[in-house]
């Protein structure tokens, strides 16, 4: 059990982060805080991918004459990093759309409190 925690503690922390974000999205009443939660969820997923690329005693994927090309184990897997660049762009765009929606909601109803909004949209 201790070995499991020691070997994978980063993943456990990231799952905890995911759950914190989920809590924010589900429980918080203010729409702005829901967006914070959403951001935390996306960030935890991105970090999860990056962590999955980690290798002990390996370096960044740039050719180093001192290490050479004989042993590819000495370089990290660059694929997750490049994929997550796309995911970060997606996260930013989602934030943009959600802020635009929040502005429209505030203009229509003058509040960002969810229970009050549910009352007024009835």
């Amino acid at each position: 059990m201790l070995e499991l925690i020691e070997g994978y503690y980063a993943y456990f922390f990231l799952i905890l982060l995911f759950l914190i974000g989920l809590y924010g999205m589900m429980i918080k009443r203010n729409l702005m805080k829901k967006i914070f939660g959403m951001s935390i969820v996306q960030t935890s997923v991105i970090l999860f991918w990056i962590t999955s690329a980690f290798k002990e005693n390996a370096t960044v994927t740039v050719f180093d004459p001192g290490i050479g090309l004989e042993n590819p184990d000495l370089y990290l897997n660059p694929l997750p990093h490049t994929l997550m660049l796309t995911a970060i762009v997606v996260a930013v765009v989602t934030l943009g759309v959600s802020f635009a929606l929040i502005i429209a909601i505030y203009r229509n109803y003058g509040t960002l409190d969810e229970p009050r909004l549910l009352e007024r949209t009835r």
Partner: protein
Amino acid sequence: MNPIQIPLLIPVTFLFASLLTPLAGLLGRSWAHLVSLAGAVFVFFLSLKGLGAALAEGPLRYYVSGWLPPMGIEFVLDPLAGFLEVIITGMTVLVLIYARKSVEIENPDKAVPFYTLTMLLMTGLSGMVITGDLFNLYVFLEISALAGYALLAIGGKRAPFSAFRYLTLGTLGAGFYLMGLVFLFMTTGTLNMADMSRMLPLVNGSFTVTTGLILIILGAGLKMGLFPLHTWLPDAYTNASSAATSLIAPVGTKVAAYIMIRMLIISGFPPLIELLTWVAAAGIIAASILAIAQSDIKRMLAYSSVANIGYIALGITLANPLAFIGAMLHILNHALMKAVLFFAAGGIFIKMGTRDIFQLRGLPKKMPFTAGAMLIAVFSMVGIPPTGGFFSKIYLIFGAIEAGTWFFVAVILISTLLNFVYFFRVIQTSFFKPYENGGTTDDDVKYESMEMDEMSPGMLVPTLIISVVIILVGLFNGAIVDKVITPGHPWFSG
């Protein structure tokens, strides 16, 4: 044209149309409409041609910038993807014809953004269907989702709030998908679908893979509005403009269902789908009962969508050939029926000024053609031959019998009765409401003075076309199953 380029051209044409539409919008709204319609018609013929080529010569594969899989991204148009592609692009063409008048009446100042977002939505959806790479699928998923949030936010005063709730849950669904994908990627080291389906049997039953699959199915379930995760759907559909709803309701959730089909095919139908069958069955019954409780026609149709997604999920997860055929046929049928019903609901709201199903009295007198088209769609929804809905339900029932699960046979039959209840309330009020007090009440006087006031031809023609197609699908369902669905079937094509 070389058919090998078709898989790439389908999403790229939509993308270019989404760039050209706002430019054309500078000249005027009708130009924007024309450009987007031309793009959609072009892609529709491309997908027909692609489906024909895929059926004749096997899957069409396009390798982006010449990188061969599993390293590069590939676009694959196999019969299954071609079938979906023809459905969604065909629906887009008809919805765009309908949208011209409908948007003009409901949100005239939002017309150009509407057409632009429609093109962007279709870029994402057609890309999701056609891609052969799991991360590429995520990117297309987000393109379609972001366009969808904005599209559903065009509408009445309430629309932005319901679109926001969809946004939070939709982003969560995409987050689940990406989280699940990292588990699969850590285990297999590949993102190519074909490569993944070869790798997964080697690590069968691994805890990591199971966790990943559960997360991905959860994400797809959120996107398709599968029963306990459907809470965003009724509000979003009810409050959006009728053109946006009639585009997203038939097309959007179907593509999410297609992701679930793809993932289950890739993972070789793991045993955990038995649980999903029960969830789908619970969803069919619960959503049908909730639909009975609604009095707003759009809201009722939204709950009926949730129930029908349940049928599709049930057919997929029963995991035998007959049920699979039923699910695929139901994807086609449900897209057609829901389009007609939402078209009709939009037209009724414009002409009769109400969405309350208990005030639809005199509908056949005022709008005879709309009422006729709606009647056909309702028959198909309930499952009366020779409409298409009957045949997809009969395949689902045969599939459940073949799986030996009599409980699910009962679920389908009971839900048919529930369908009957909630749809025939509409028929009964609009067609057969009797006179009270010898025809002297206000309601009766209003009914007597009603004159024919049909919705405009631009909105009526697509409605009638689809209702004719519903009957044609019913009559020629044997040909569709033999020629198109069976070759796309994972058990037959290997």
